[in-house]
């Protein structure tokens, strides 16, 4: 559409009946271009950010991240900011009429127009101003008063949500904190109908999808995160001047019709949301620190850290969180009634329920309602007709003449942007099988069960690119392990919630083989089981049944395939000091036969948010040989 517009503009000049007018136009355009060169506008951060230019990695120069050709007015606009600026100025002469399927470039690039106008003070007589009705209407409907960054925290049992998600909320003037559901949300997402997780992951990793911005009512997102997925939501109200907010929204409009190639790790939802937000003012630089990967919680951190951008943080607990709080406020009998009511073992007229004071009866019914909603939303319902049951509960509750029994739920002390840094490096020393060693460990990202939980989901471990290097006193230096992915999800079960715990890890680990050597072996491990917790949430214990496959040419038949149990318990003496004991035994029954056993005790003491001390001891048996390992290390998070 843009190209056509530009051609149309050119031909209009050529065919003009009044050569003077055309000449004046091109004269003024030449004037504007000369002035823009003189002011070096194409090099300014405002222009670089509006067209999403980033420095090339290998060569000098820049390239635009937007992959949609419609975003560029110049043929070489993706790599040439100056040419793009000149072509944009030229496009502002276009006489394209706005319609349902097209816009005039002045409206399509409404933020570019506004900024260039600020810099060059367009003469409306020499460059007619377009009205941009669609944009005006859209802006008026949003009725914006402010912007809020929304962070949906990780959902423990779902690998594709594990990093969390961010979006931007447009708060309207006629809303208050009770009616925020009615605001709009600006969301960046990959466009795909893929339901196959593997295909989705593969395409997502390598840019196989188009990512685009869309706008939808905030309540739709709240339903999705809070009720269906049970992810707590954090709302960071941003401190922007009206002019800054307007700039961001004008740029939102510009991004509405274009796409980026979507990459899970770097060019994902959070990265592009930062790219949108940083047009607020020239010096605001948010994306440059995320060239390699952008984890939503880290991008939130970038916003809260230095810029003074956040004025207020609001916590919106998910349905499951609310249910847990309600259950915590109940005694054993009330809890049992709520549970029985939710699975139809009793009905709303049960005498034990009616015998309670009205407020307690209401509390039981409300908890039961929420739990039935939770079961319906997560497809775990135990009764045949959950919708009928829900309706019975609503009706019964409406007959009780007491106020809502929702307990006040305080935000967790540590916000998602206040947890430990997601990358980690550790220096340590120890002794293994009679040999002293020094050790260097690194982790690309993100959280391990032994790390402090503040700001992260408890029991959820997601580690990418975990590497250990050791130097032994014998002079040998070797890679002990290189694990691209390690995921462990320990979700506690109780009488209401019964999630499955599971793990999956893949990479290279040292393993003893029949010839006596200890080469790096490619290993994949997976497991499933259950986790339980004590009432005060200071302890977790788990039991998993695991399967493992090792692949190495030197092994008998080139592989080893096995299965077996693993059990463990975590205990927090206090928030700083955590203990983890474990026992694991796999029997490899195919390929190279062996029954390796591991028994160990790990301890962590947090010294600060980003500093911790670890002390680990273990006893292992491999190929009928037993040995001990002990090590102490200092961990730094960044």
């Amino acid at each position, binding site marked *: 559409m843009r190209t056509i517009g530009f051609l149309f503009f050119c031909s209009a000049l050529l065919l003009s009946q009044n050569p003077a007018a055309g000449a004046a136009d091109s004269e003024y355009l030449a004037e504007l271009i000369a002035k823009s060169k003189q002011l070096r506008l194409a090099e300014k951060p405002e222009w670089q950010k509006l067209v999403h230019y980033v420095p090339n990695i290998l060569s000098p120069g820049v390239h635009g991240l937007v992959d949609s050709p419609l975003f560029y007015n110049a043929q070489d606009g993706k790599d040439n900011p100056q040419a793009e600026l000149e072509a944009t100025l030229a496009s502002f002469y276009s006489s394209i009429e706005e319609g349902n399927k097209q816009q005039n470039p002045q409206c399509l690039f409404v933020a570019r127009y506004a900024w260039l106008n600020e810099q060059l003070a367009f003469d409306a007589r020499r460059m007619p101003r377009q009205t941009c009705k669609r944009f005006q209407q859209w802006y008026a409907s949003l009725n914006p008063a402010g912007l809020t960054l929304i962070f949906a925290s990780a959902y423990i049992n779902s690998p594709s949500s594990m990093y969390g998600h961010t979006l931007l909320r447009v708060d309207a003037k006629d809303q208050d904190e009770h009616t925020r559901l009615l605001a709009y949300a*600006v969301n960046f997402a990959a466009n795909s109908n893929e339901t196959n997780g593997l295909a989705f992951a593969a395409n*997502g990793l390598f840019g196989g999808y188009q990512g685009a911005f869309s706008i939808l009512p905030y309540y739709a997102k709240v339903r999705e995160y809070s009720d269906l997925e049970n992810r707590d939501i954090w709302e960071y109200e941003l401190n922007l001047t009206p002019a800054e907010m307007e700039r961001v929204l004008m740029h939102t409009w510009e991004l509405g019709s274009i796409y980026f190639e979507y990459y899970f790790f770097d060019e994902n939802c959070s990265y592009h949301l930062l790219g949108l937000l940083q047009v607020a003012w020239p010096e605001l630089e948010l994306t440059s620190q995320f060239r390699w990967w952008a984890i939503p919680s880290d991008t939130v951190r970038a916003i809260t850290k230095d810029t003074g951008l956040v004025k207020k943080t609001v916590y919106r607990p998910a349905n499951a969180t609310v249910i847990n709080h309600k259950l915590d406020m109940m005694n054993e009998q009330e809890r049992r009634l709520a549970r029985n009511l939710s699975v139809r073992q009793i009905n709303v007229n049960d005498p034990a329920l009616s015998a309670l004071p009205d407020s307690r009866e209401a509390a039981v019914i409300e908890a039961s309602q929420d739990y039935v*909603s939770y079961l319906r939303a997560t497809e775990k319902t135990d009764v045949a007709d959950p919708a009928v049951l829900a309706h019975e509960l609503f009706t019964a509750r409406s007959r009780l003449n007491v106020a809502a029994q929702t307990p006040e739920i305080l935000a967790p002390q540590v916000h998602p942007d206040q947890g430990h840094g997601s990358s980690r490096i550790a220096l340590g020393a120890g002794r293994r099988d009679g040999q002293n060693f020094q050790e260097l460990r690194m982790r690309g990202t993100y959280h391990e069960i032994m790390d402090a939980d503040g700001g992260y989901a408890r029991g959820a471990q997601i580690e990418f690119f975990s590497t250990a290097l050791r130097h032994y006193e014998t002079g040998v230096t070797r890679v002990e392990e290189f694990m691209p992915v390690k995921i462990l999800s320990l979700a506690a079960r109780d009488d209401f919630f019964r999630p499955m715990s599971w793990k999956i890890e893949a990479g290279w680990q040292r393993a003893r083989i029949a010839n006596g050597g200890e080469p790096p072996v490619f290993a994949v491990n997976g497991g499933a089981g259950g986790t339980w917790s004590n009432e005060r949430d200071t302890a977790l214990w788990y039991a998993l049944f695991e399967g493992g496959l090792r692949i190495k040419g030197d092994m008998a038949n080139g592989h080893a395939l096995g299965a077996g149990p693993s059990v463990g318990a975590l205990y927090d003496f206090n928030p700083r000091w955590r203990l983890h004991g474990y026992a694991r035994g796999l029997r490899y029954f195919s390929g190279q036969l062996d029954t390796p056993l591991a028994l160990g005790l790990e301890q962590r003491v947090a010294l600060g948010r980003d500093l911790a001390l670890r002390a680990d001891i273990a006893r292992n048996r491999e190929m009928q040989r037993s040995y001990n390992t002990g090590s102490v290390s200092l961990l730094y998070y960044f």
Partner: protein
Amino acid sequence: MKKLIIAISLVAAFPVAALAADNVGGCGVGSMVFKGQSGIAPQVLAVTTNGISGNQTFGITSGTLGCTQDGVVTSNMAATMFIETNKEQLARDMSVGSGETLASLAQLLGVEAQDKSAFNSFAKDNMARIFTADSVATEQVIVALRAALASDATLSRYQTAL
């Protein structure tokens, strides 16, 4: 639930300013009856969350029923779409006579500050009348809500927003 989410995605996640596609989004509320019983595996949903928001042009014929314009819900459809998406939360809030879903509905209906507490009690008293059965179509909820409002002396003027 699955139907609900798909409906939300199709209706609501419309490109901000679709250049190639028509900017008028259809909404077809009649076809988005909230079934309630069906659900969706959390894994698939999680995928929905981080990426897929539905093919934005699929199922939307331009101008069938003016529901969104450049991604923003048109004012005459705002209450309908809100009820459609939030039915269960609305029933829950009505059953206790408070909550943000109910407050948001009041806002959409233009309920003035001095009538808010009357509106909340009204909602609680009429909950069983508005949500007559376990799985009820949006149009029915709206019709029942309108009828209940009409019979309320103080609040009858708010039925026009529906």
